[in-house]
């Protein structure tokens, strides 16, 4: 698999560390109810198809990335900097 880092360009998958569903970006507020935290930490849609997940270009530029990807075909549909996505989110 190859991922196009917005900073470094297209790189082999081995340069990246994976952390899972991009839901990790949406950390609940400190006073959110337990269900919110349970959902954040544990529950996943885990789709067989298009998903957004978080990758870290650990052996490259050290940027955290949001990768839009198909879990059935491994096709990579888009890559963005997590910090930008987060910027849009707030």
């Amino acid at each position, binding site marked *: *698999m*190859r991922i196009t880092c917005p900073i470094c360009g297209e790189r*082999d*998958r081995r340069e990246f*560390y994976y*952390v899972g569903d991009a839901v*990790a*970006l949406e*950390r*609940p507020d*400190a006073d*959110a109810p*337990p269900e919110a*935290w349970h959902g954040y*930490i544990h529950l996943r849609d885990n789709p067989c198809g298009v998903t957004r997940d*978080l990758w*870290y270009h*650990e052996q490259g530029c*050290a*940027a*955290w990335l949001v990768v839009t990807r198909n879990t059935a*075909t*491994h*096709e*990579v549909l888009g890559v963005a*900097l*997590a*910090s930008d996505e*987060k*910027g849009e989110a*707030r």
Partner: protein
Amino acid sequence: MRIGGEGPIGRGRRIGFTFDGRAYQGLAGDTLASALLANGVRVMGRSFKYHRPRGVMTAGSEEPNALVTVGRGGLQEPNLRATQLELHEGLAARSQNRWPSLTFDILALNDLASPFFGAGFYYKTFMWPRAFWERVYEPMIRRAAGLGALSGAPSDLRVEKAWAHCDLLVIGAGPAGLMAALTAARAGADVIIADEDTRPGGRLNAETIEVDGVPGRDWAAEITAELSGMDNVRVMTRTTVTGAYDGGTYGALERLAPEVAARPGAPRECFWRIVARRAVLAAGALERPIAFANNDRPGVMMAGAVRAYVNRWCVSPGRSVAVFGNNSDAHRTVADLLAAGVHVSALIDARHDATCSLDVPFYPGAQVSNAHGRCGLEAVSILTPSGEEKIEAECLAMSGGWNPSVHLTCHMNGRPDWREDIAAFVPRPGAVPGLVAAGVARGDFSTRACLQGGVAAAREALTALGRTAPEIDIPGAEDSRYDITPIWSVPGRGRAWLDFQNDVTVKDVRLAAQENFRSVEHMKRYTTQGMAPDQGKNSNVNALAVLADATGRAIAETGTTTFRPPYVPVSIAAMGVGGRGKGFAPQRLTTSHELSVARGAPMIEAGLWYRPSYFPAPGESHWRQSCDREVLMVRNAVGVTDVSTLGKIDIQGPDAAALLDLVYANTFSTLKPGRVRYGLMLREDGHVMDDGTTARLGENQYLMTTTTAAAGLVMRHLEFVHQCLRPDWDVRMVSVTENWAQFAIAGPKSAELLNGLLDAPVADADWPFMSCGPVSVGGVGARLFRISFSGERGYELAVPARYGEALFRELVARAEPLGGGPYGMEALNVLRIEKGFITHAEIHGRTTAFDIGMGGMVSKAKDCIGKAAAARPGLSGEEREQLVGLKPVGTVKMLVPGAHLFEEGAEAVSDNSQGYITSAAFSPTLGHFLGLGFLRNGRARHGQRVRMVDHLKGVVAICEVQDPVQYDRDGGRMRG
């Protein structure tokens, strides 16, 4: 035997080699198979299950029968295809899976018992008596099974891995591949063309076909010459593309030519990772056998292989050859044989309407029903419309039609499409993104169609690459129609082989269907059809045709099993090169490494780092002696140890404090510049991730210390928190671990040692416990931290790494007169256990702040990573196992890390387990063993007695539960 002819081999020089110890001669350009055939050797192997004699059947990597072993010891390679093995001086090949010899094999008895060894027989027996399975049945089966053998010696194959990048990868250098490469190359694209064979040309090397009015192989040579001359083209021969992976990544195995591999330092094989924006699959097709009784006799071969041996290697597989086919290739074979002067005893064409212009005995509408001659074909029986006949032949060339090489297109779970007109599967377009099939691989069988197909495929790729294809004229070549009437198996009573390697016959497949293994996957798994080294290349389509017939379904409906990588087997050594010995992981060495080794310190792995275990003094013969001495040395004088391996992260910016408050359970925004604080870090799931001291160097600058093991993990975590949770914060962080050599100086005389070294001495007034700041050593700017992991007055002195070795030498030299010296990990561990300081033995990923008695550190005043999850009811409370100190108080005086704890008198079984010991050591300071461990509701049980049981070493000890801090509880010595 060798015959005359125009084959390139004709001019080859003589080469000596041996097979099973017998000396033979071949010619340069021979494969082992062609050379053995030339020498009249017919039996080259034994089959897997029935140990039947087998001869060579093909001329390529798909060869199922002629598998041999070459080399000895670390160079012993089993299961090499004689059809691929290039003959070279001194080649010594051995046959396999036979005992005592290839011609006389005891286990051939299995063949007689075949009625009882049908598909899946072992699922139905060998069950009684139970104990016999491991002791009798299984060893018996294992000995009989298997093909070649490993020597047991470590692999000495020189191999390498490499990367290549290109615009277009062309897989296969036959007519289609060469035209595709030429078209793309002339358009200026970076092209890699890879072919399994030693020379480009594909089938052209094996046929008498002409291209552009010259012999096909000469045309291929011309095109190859042009390609090789272009610097945007890489022609890779002896290179098999083994797998198609995501993102246009392909695996390929290159076998270097024997003469190159023989050079000192040269690799034997190279495993390539090829990254291609587009690819053309021009891998041709594999001819398929026809199933009839005893079709596995030595001498029964594929017609295309026979043409290859005759035309390319000038070898006739027999004095008289019969040809059996269901398509036009049979006739081409006869023509080539006649032209080469080989006697053809019959042309048997299963097609009733077939006609023949050649001067040979011709049997239209006939089929071969049996083959005779156990160790070499003597005759075949045929069924003609007018009855049965026997025909003499030393070789039967059979052609059941061709299967396009769709394999790579299935590597991403793609399924091929069935084409009734050619009775074969063809690649499904788009099965591998960016890859298009061309030529025979796509079902276009005439040479002309291949040449056109190659150009068309290249055009498609060039368009996708945004390049314009040049005008290119298609060379003239035969454009005959491929005409086939499928036959999968000839009716009859004997065993007709489908999978030659795994000894799977038509009967086995029918039995599988009878027992309800009707899904093609079930049939495969039940009969082992297609699971041998050729991965069913020779047999899958025939087998599923038989299954389709047995289950009354169409072939398309029956479906296929999935071809998986690799296309041809690849050695573990080739894909795993770099993993051998020390190469498996990088070695991180501290600046004091050489000096420590020179002092005889055993170096032990700590993550990727190496750290000294202990420093043996003269007369010390056991590590405990050194360890005890080093511990007392630190307690009574001064010790020096390298702590550079701990992670150091420089955190700067206006929001540095905010970041630390979020990642640490406790608060750092309140820390004063010039001060150090212990920090506890949680994972978001509420468990402890790591701990360490963090210093505030300035208003907006902190220096975080992590444990050695978690340094990378913490760095990643900090970047996550910043980039993914609070990108709005203005903070920057960078690892400075490698920039500094840092040494702990611990013990009552640490200040004395330090002040003898610093350019300006430090006084306690300015340097209280947990303070830090800049100092100077020999004019070198350094950093000093007054912290302690030993419980004694201690400092950590950090200098730029280039001075590390010199500083360590100085520190040790100056410590010794004070009764001090260096100490290692063993002593460091004892010291911290005495003090109840935790390491990853305690914070092993399952412990919470509550468990280790630091629940109070989780600030109520602020949010932090892991705070919410830590509040879950299950993460605190009396049911939790809590950190305690332990000391043996019974007759047995030792403690064992990993031993479990039970109430006195309780049986040592799971339900009674109250906890376990995480760390234990003999404390020379206190004169007895000490332990740290986790005990259910342990903090409430100080003073109670528990029983430690280690079943493995048979140690049982009564211990008293204590506070984890078992030495200098008030910390007076540390604060000084």
